[in-house]
């Protein structure tokens, strides 16, 4: 059988990096094809080549044996390729309706909104999706935004659908629903290219897997030839996966206590309602829940970015309820934000500078009114070595690093302040296995030094592995606190949907 879509020895260079170095890929009709590889292996770059955003330096692209050159995404759309980008391509100030219209290929010059609305409703109904069409995208949760992106592909009637880490932002239930769709697409004879780091999903879905490493194809395997160990081995190669173990610990002292907290409501996002929680010294407290149930508000209140309406927060017995961000941080709370690129770093600045964003005023980084560049450099060298950060040539803007390395920089910076409490939101979202395990190990090491961590995550496997206790949130309240060793995914799932509480 001939491949529907064939990528042959494609090379793509960016200033300073060879992102793709002769990569090959064969996509057959009616299959779910998983692309595996660490961050920086070139998966997203390759997908952006297929999407027409990047034009390759060399190599060929064939569809049904015919060579194609994509000059723009328009050519790619014409060829029947559609993609949900990892960072959604949505117009945030426009409504859902207007965003979906962008995908309608035969859009008439005069927009007959009534007629178009009926047409879009039909498609939504066909797939059993309920999205409020007149809501601006920015008021939607990330999960809902992804459905909008998916609807855009469905409207285009693509032959090849590319999904770049679609499940990173979905709940287990939503993921299952997505997988249902993907399998349905397959039945209809469409091909799906799927990128994920979650092995369970890869095993469940894939008909074929292509493993990439450093911009080249390592291996192509069909179902039956691979299992989790084989894939992990191919992906990581000779690199070591950090190993760690959780020691049993006794917890007594309370470092942070939250009492009857209420916080302001934002549209479509649950606020905090009479929220009480205690964090003990040296403990890792996981917070499970579907995104948009108040986790973000909780993190923002704890780190001082948002004032609570009422209630109290005590750190080491000291009232920090109304402290601003700076004071809260002085009280020893570190923050790994949800959106690492927009909140965690100054994208155009170098790794060295990003590592001292919070401590540039402290000794030894300051000399009178000047910065001590020697100390800054030494600090960077140490952190880069300690955290195994691949920082690229000196002075590289941090935004050019892969997601995993950016996250390492953020965590290195936050931990270098020796905080007593770390609030981490989705710390491993979008990270490959190696990087994710590394982040876990670092948090676990800090636990040994009695740092307390609140890990907010949607990845239940991560929470079960990492946490000493798991609190489950639903609509701004805690619906239960469970012991990871005596609970099940089902129990947590029920608490997440609020059913157990009723």
């Amino acid at each position, binding site marked *: 059988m001939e491949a529907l879509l064939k990528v042959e020895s494609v090379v793509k260079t960016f200033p300073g990096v060879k992102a793709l170095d002769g990569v090959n890929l064969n996509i057959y009709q009616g299959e779910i094809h998983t692309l595996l590889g660490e961050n920086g292996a070139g998966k997203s770059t390759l997908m952006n080549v297929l999407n027409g*955003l990047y034009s390759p330096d060399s190599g060929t692209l064939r569809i049904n044996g015919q060579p194609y050159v994509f000059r723009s*995404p*328009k050519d790619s759309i014409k060829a029947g390729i559609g993609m949900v*980008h990892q960072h959604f391509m949505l117009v945030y100030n426009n409504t859902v309706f207007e965003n979906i219209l*962008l995908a309608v290929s035969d*859009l008439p010059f005069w927009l007959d909104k009534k007629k178009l609305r009926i047409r879009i409703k039909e498609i939504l109904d066909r797939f059993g999706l309920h999205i409020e069409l007149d809501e601006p995208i920015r008021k939607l949760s990330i999960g809902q935004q992804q459905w909008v992106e998916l609807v855009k592909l469905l409207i285009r009637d693509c032959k090849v659908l590319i999904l770049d880490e679609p499940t990173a932002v979905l709940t287990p239930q939503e993921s299952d629903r997505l997988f249902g769709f993907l399998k349905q697409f397959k039945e209809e004879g469409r091909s799906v290219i799927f990128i994920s780091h979650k092995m369970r999903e890869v095993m469940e879905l894939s008909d074929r897997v292509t493993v990439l490493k450093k911009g080249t194809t390592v291996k192509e395997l069909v179902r039956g030839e691979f299992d989790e160990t084989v894939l992990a081995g191919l992906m990581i190669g000779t690199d070591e996966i950090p190993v760690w173990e959780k020691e049993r610990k006794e917890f007594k002292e309370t470092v942070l206590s939250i009492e009857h907290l209420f916080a302001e409501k934002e549209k479509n996002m649950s606020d905090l309602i009479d929220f009480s929680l205690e964090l003990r010294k040296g403990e890792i407290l996981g917070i499970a829940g579907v995104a948009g149930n108040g986790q973000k508000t909780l993190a923002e209140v704890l780190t001082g970015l948002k004032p609570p309406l009422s209630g109290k927060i005590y750190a080491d017995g000291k009232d920090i309820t109304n402290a601003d961000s700076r004071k809260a941080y002085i009280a020893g709370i570190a923050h790994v934000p949800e959106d690492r690129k927009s909140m965690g770093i100054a994208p155009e600045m170098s790794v060295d500078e990003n590592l001292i964003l919070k401590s540039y005023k402290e000794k030894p980084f300051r000399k009178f009114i000047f910065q001590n560049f020697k100390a800054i450099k030494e600090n960077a060298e140490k952190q880069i070595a300690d955290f195994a950060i691949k920082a690229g040539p000196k002075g590289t803007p941090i935004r050019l690093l892969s997601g995993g390395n950016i996250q390492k920089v953020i965590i290195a910076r936050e931990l270098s302040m020796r905080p007593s409490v770390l609030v981490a939101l989705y710390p491993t979202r979008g990270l490959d296995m190696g990087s994710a395990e590394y982040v876990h190990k670092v948090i676990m090491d800090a636990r040994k030094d009695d740092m307390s961590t609140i890990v907010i995550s949607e990845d239940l496997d991560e929470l079960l592995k990492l946490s000493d206790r798991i609190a489950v949130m639903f609509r701004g309240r805690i619906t239960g606190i469970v012991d990871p060793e005596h609970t099940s995914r089902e129990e947590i799932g029920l608490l997440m949907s609020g059913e157990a509480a009723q």
Partner: protein
Amino acid sequence: MIEILLFATIKAGTPLLFATLGAILMERSGVINLGVEGLMLVGALTGFAAAHTTDSLFMGVITAFFAAMAAGAIHGFICVYLRGNQIVSGLSLTMFGIGITSLFGRSFVGLTISGFSKVEIPVLSKIPYIGQALFNQDVLVYFSILLVVAIHIFFYRTKTGLYLRSVGENPGAADTSGINVGLYRMSAVLVGSGLAGLGGAYLSLAYTPFWVENMTAGRGWIAVALVIFAQWNSTRAMAGAYLFGGINAVQLRMQAMGTSLSPHLLMMLPYLFTIAVLVIATLRLEKGSTPEPEALGTPYDREDRK
């Protein structure tokens, strides 16, 4: 009295309205243009020169539109295709406009033409108080009002308008939907610059039918501020332009009546108001939302790794 003031208000507001509409068109595509002042001057001079030489006001208007468009093309090319700094490019465009019009305008100083005359619309112009002010104006005033409606319809009722707004909000999303970001931005800059030129031409062909150096007197800058006041919305732009026209009209009248206030102070009024309006417009915003096109001022590079 009210009728005369209202009439003067609309006349003084019209050049601002053209320029603001032009700027809105450009900024909705994501390109900020601080060269409006220069474009207005180019429009004012070329419009006057063409009208004087050909003895046709229509030719004057057409020439002003295309001359300003040509000047705007420089800005468009720098911002859209060379991905240059839009602020710097716009500022240079203003300097360029001031310089080139004072150079080539010398020989036109002191010449006169007969400007646009009033066209009375039957029935409507008989409405008491507002009839004469609104419906006994020149054709360019009527055209500017039509343009307000047309641009609103264009933005919210047509495919091209939706695409243009998307380009200004998130060029990446537009690009991956198959929309030619560069083409949309360039076209918006061209047409928008032409409209700014019309604003200038209104000054030299209708408002005061002669040419003097630097005759726009900062109106281009007021237009840039009005875009923010109008929250990138063409109907609000009309309210804003007439508001400023009104202040101007009142100010002139007060001078004519001979108040004890210094004329310099009175002439400052529109500009003081610009600042006040910016403060109010910003304060009124709903928290967390901004009517500003999200990608305003940022060049789009498809291959940039974000």
